[in-house]
Structures are given as C-alpha cells and as structure tokens.
C-alpha cells in the first residue's frame, strides 16, 4: 500500500511526479469532508489518502468519531449535498467520483461498490421483507423479472449462511436475529457482485461467536470474488483477523499506516500504541485487559494546535519536540507511514522498551 498524506498541500495534482490517473483500483487522494454547522465547520475527514487493490483488504481503525464512517460514505457519494463540503479525489477503477455527476455515481453504487452498514436493524427498511430489499438491490442494476431476482435473493441468502432461505426470504427484518440480519445485510451488499465492498463495523452489535462467523464469511466471500474490501472498525481485533493493510485514523486524519504485520509488530505512533493497549485479547488476563486511552477525542471544530493527539499523548513535548505547535506530516518510511514528531529511532526504542512488554 502506498499512501501519501500531506495536509498542507492543496491536492494531489499539485504534487510533482504524480500521475493524474492512478493505477490502483481504489485511490483516495487527500479526501476532505467538512460539515458546516451552526457551531462551526466540523472537519470530520481532513486530508486522508490511501490505495486499495482488488483482492486486498484494508482496515481503517480509530476511536468513535475519528471519521471512519464519514470517509466510507464519502467514497460512496452518500453525503447530503448542500450540507457537506467534499474535496479531494476518489478514483475507482480509473474513474474519479468526487467530481463525477451524481447520476453516474448512483449507477456505480450497489453495483461496483457496495456497503455493509453498521447496525443492520436500523439499516434495513422495517416495512419491506428481507427478500424484497435484496430483489430491489439486484433489479436496480439488472433488467430481470421479479422471479429471477427472487431466485437470486434466495441464492444469496443461502450463500451467506441463512438456513431455509426459500422461506426466510419473505420474513421482515425484525423476524431475524442480530447475526442473521447482518448476514442478510451482507447478502444485499453482494447482490451485484461488487468490486469494492465497504464493511462499516460489520460485527459491532454481535456476540463473539457470531462475530467470528461473520468475519469468516467476509473472508470467504472475498476469496471467492477477489473484490477489494475496506473494513472499518474501532476494534483492532477485527482488522487483525482480516486486513492486509491498516490505516489508523485520529480526528479526521491518518496518523499511521502500513501492512497489518508492521502495524501489529512495530507500531510507531503513540495513538496506535494506545489502541493496541485497549485491545481485548484472549491470551490476556481479564483484569489487565482494556486500558482505554486517557482523555477523549477532540472537538472536530476546534482541533488542538499542532499534533491533534497531543493533549492525550504521554510522549508529547519530549526534548523540545514541537507537538503543540506543528502539525506532524505523515512521513513515509520504507513500508510504513507515521505522523509523529518523535524521531523514528526514538519511537522504535520506546515501543520496544516501554510499550511492547506491557502489551
């Protein structure tokens, strides 16, 4: 994964040596999503860039409110026009979406890119049957009869592991259990064999066993279709299961990114360390599990000066490092991008000596 993220430039095209049209399947460049509100402009996403290839899985992690869902809705073009200011570029299979006509993006939605939403109870229409909702998803993009689409719906429900799909297809969402609803939601997203599948917290509302089943399902489906998967979560355990690459978001920006291996073995950003420390693990005794990161996420209207993480960072201000005054760039190492003022050697040493033993 190659990531460029420099919040100070005006756009990727301004950077020398960058091709206007990318080769990657999904290439998000300096995406910014701002919401003007009565209290001020909420900078929910403020300069995020990443790429994702077919057959690969990218995990976006971060605490609640870090801008993960806003990023994914931005890719799908689902933000309400007039209430949202979006800039940057989203290239999907050689086509730029931010500047594309809404009608064009609509045609891609559900067919080329599809989304599994956070809460399947509220994300499915309560008054339509599960089958009708899948049939509809299929028929927007395929000129087929209801009967054909219905067979497709039954087939999909069976594929995602719903028992007796021919009968359950006529149930309403409230007649499904939480896990079944999530499966139905996945079936709906898969209706048109999308090339890009975005899963926003696909397992949050589910218990651990069902969580594992759903993650297995997503992995199997990806192997089968070789689609690109973007998985969004605040749970590092989920990305550990699924992701090839990981992008860590804080306050609307990317603070660290790299391959999953790198991020789990050699994380360098203090925020990522915090996330790792708060990650529940089976091999850890219950009492010293979850050590939440101190403090709470900042206001997205008035970000802290300098590094947005500095009010919560135990390492800020060491040896006259300008944490409070200068915004750290996402500096690229060989396989790894980190936005932190601490010198790389110091970060690695701190992790190895102070952080890793406690994890």
């Amino acid at each position, binding site marked *: 994964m190659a990531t460029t993220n420099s919040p100070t430039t005006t756009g990727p095209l301004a950077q020398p040596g960058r091709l206007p049209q990318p080769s990657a399947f999904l290439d998000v460049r300096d995406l910014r999503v701002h919401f003007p509100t009565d209290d001020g402009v909420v900078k929910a996403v403020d300069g995020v860039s990443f790429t994702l290839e077919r057959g690969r899985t990218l995990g976006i992690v971060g605490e609640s409110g870090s801008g993960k869902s806003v990023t994914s*809705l931005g890719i*799908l073009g*689902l933000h309400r026009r007039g209430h949202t200011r979006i800039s940057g570029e989203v290239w999907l299979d050689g086509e730029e979406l931010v500047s594309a006509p809404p009608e064009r993006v*609509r*045609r*891609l*939605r*559900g*067919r080329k890119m*599809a*989304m599994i*939403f*956070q*809460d399947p109870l*509220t*994300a*499915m*229409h*309560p*008054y*339509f049957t599960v089958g009708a909702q899948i049939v*509809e*998803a299929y028929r*927007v*993009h395929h000129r087929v009869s209801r009967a054909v689409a219905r067979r497709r719906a039954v087939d999909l429900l069976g594929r995602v592991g719903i028992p007796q799909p021919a009968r359950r297809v006529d149930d*309403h969402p*409230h*007649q499904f259990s939480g896990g079944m609803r999530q499966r139905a939601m996945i079936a*709906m997203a898969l*209706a048109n064999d999308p090339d890009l599948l975005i899963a926003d917290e696909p397992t949050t509302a589910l218990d651990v066993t069902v969580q594992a089943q759903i993650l297995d399902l997503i992995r199997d489906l990806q192997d089968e279709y070789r689609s690109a998967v973007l998985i969004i979560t605040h749970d590092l355990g989920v990305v550990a299961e699924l992701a090839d690459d990981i992008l860590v978001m804080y306050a609307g920006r990317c603070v660290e990114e790299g391959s999953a291996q790198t991020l789990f073995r050699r994380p360098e950003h203090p925020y990522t360390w915090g996330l790792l420390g708060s990650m529940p693990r089976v091999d850890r005794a219950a009492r010293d599990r979850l050590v939440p990161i101190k403090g709470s996420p900042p206001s997205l209207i008035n970000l802290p000066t300098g590094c947005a993480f500095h009010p919560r960072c135990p390492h800020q201000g060491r040896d006259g490092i300008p944490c409070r005054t200068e915004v750290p760039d996402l500096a690229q190492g060989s396989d790894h991008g980190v936005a932190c003022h601490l010198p790389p050697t110091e970060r690695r040493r701190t992790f190895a000596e102070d952080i890793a033993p406690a994890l």
Partner: protein
Amino acid sequence: MTHYIIRRVLTSAVLMIIISMVTFGVFFMVPKLAGTNPAELYVGKQATPADVAATARKLGLDQPVTVQYARFAKGLVAGRDLDDGPNRTHCAAPCFGYSFRNDRPVWPLLLDRLPVTVSLAVGAAVLWLAGGVLAGVVSALRRGGPLDRTMMVLALAGVSLPVYFTGLLAQLVFVHTLHWLPGGEYVNLADDPAGWAAKLLLGWVTLALLYAAAYARLTRAQMLETVGEDYIRTARAKGLRERTVIGKHVMRSVLTPLVTIFGLDIGGLLGGAILTESVFGLPGIGRLSIDAVNTKDLPVVLGVTLFGALFIVLANFIVDLLYAVIDPRVRLG
C-alpha cells in the same frame, strides 16, 4: 391475524356498550340537574301536570335509569314499541329513540341526513389528502427554502383559522358577491351531480383547508424524520434513484401514521361536521344535531351523539386492522 381481529371486534363492542351507557346516563341526568322533567319537553309548554305525568308514564320516563337503558338497548338491537295506547308506534331496529317533535324514529332521520354528511366528508378528505400530503412532501424536500416557509405559515393559518370565519368569508365572496356558486338548497348527487358538487364545493374546500394544514405539517415532520433514518441511506447505497428512495422508501414510512390519523378524522367527520354544515346550509347530521339542540329534541341529540361515537369506534377498529396490514411488526412483535 384471526386472533387479532377477534380481539379487536370484542374490544370495539365493549367500548360501544360502555359509551352508550355513559351517554344514556348523561342524557338521563341532564334534565334532572336542570330541574326539568324530560316529559315536559315532549308534551309542550301548555301541558297540565297530569299530561306530563301521563307522558312520562307512557314513555317510561318515570322508571329507574337502568330499566330505561335496558329498554333503549333492546330497541337498538331488536326494535321496540313506544306506546301501548291506541296509536301505538313501532320503532324498528336499530331504534335510536323516537323524536316526538318530528314524529318519526331517530334512525330514519339520521339515514336521511347521512348522504349529505358522507358527501361532505369524502369530498373534503380527497382534497385534503391530496393537497396536504403533497404540500408536506414538497415542504420537506425544500426544507428551509422560501416555498417551505410560505407553506408552513399557510398551514399554521389553516389550522388556526376557524371554519365559521373562512366559511362565511368564502360564502360571502363566492356565493353572495361573485355569484359563482349557487346559494340554494342541497340537491342529491343522483338528481343533479353538477348542482350537488357546486353546493358542496365551498364546504369541501373549507373543511379540506383545515385538515390539509394538519396533514401537511404531519407529512413534513414525518418525512424529515424518515429521511435521516439509516435505512434510507441504505436505499441510496443500493444505487436506487432519488425518485424511488423518496417515493417508495420514505413514503412507505410516512404512510403509516397518516393512515391512522386519516381513519380517525374520517370517523369523526361522519358523525357530522356541525360548523361546516351550518355555515353552508348543508342538511347533514351535524345540522340535525344543532337543530335538535335548539328545539330541545333530546332523543335526536342522544341518537346523533351515539351515532357519532359509533363511527369513531368503527374508525378505530378499521385503523387497527389497517395498521396490522401496514406495519408488519404489529402482528408478530
């Protein structure tokens, strides 16, 4: 579903019985509290006390309230004879009582007036549904814009202006000044459809304005709430056209509360729109009741009240059934 229906039927029946008891009780008490003997009302002003007592006995008005109610209830179900004297009158089921002033049982009086009231209610309902829902949808889609604001001010005005004001004003302008509409008597739909519509038009519009305002506000509020729902975002994420998202997914959710309110409103109106009928000289059930009050024709007032209550209970019943069809969660949840 069968269970649900049976339960609703029973509840409605019990409700109707209770309402009839309470209403009957009230009508039994009122003359007593006012210090009048109801029999006096029937015989007229120049009657001797003996005449009054005789009438009271003849009508059973000297009996205890329970006996009188039992007789009334029996009349409703099976009909009854009102007079055991030589000119004995039969009041066929459903006997809502006997109007001595009109010398007829109450039920046919009601039936005579019902077509007018139904014409008024149905015509107005069509108008307000179409107008109110459309205005609400447009307002919600243009939220905060000049159209939305104008519409909501109009809606507020519509809700707060009394019918006798808008009605009389319309009557004055269109009938008496401009002479665009006829001022004469009500005519039946079957006899003269154009004349029927012309006579009802102002009533429809006035009544519709009143309700349309409320429907516009309800539709708008409901739409704005629904548009923010997760499942609407899902609908868009599927790649549905905006038309389908609004017209199918949003409207489906807006429909549910509208059906409820609509059923109850229609039920209420079928019991008679007193003000509208009076203002526009429409001889409906509302008019019948106001005339009955003015002439102290107690049996008719009682009959109209029960009849109106019947429609409200019936409307509630139908709304409950519809709700089970419309909201799948009702039956099984």
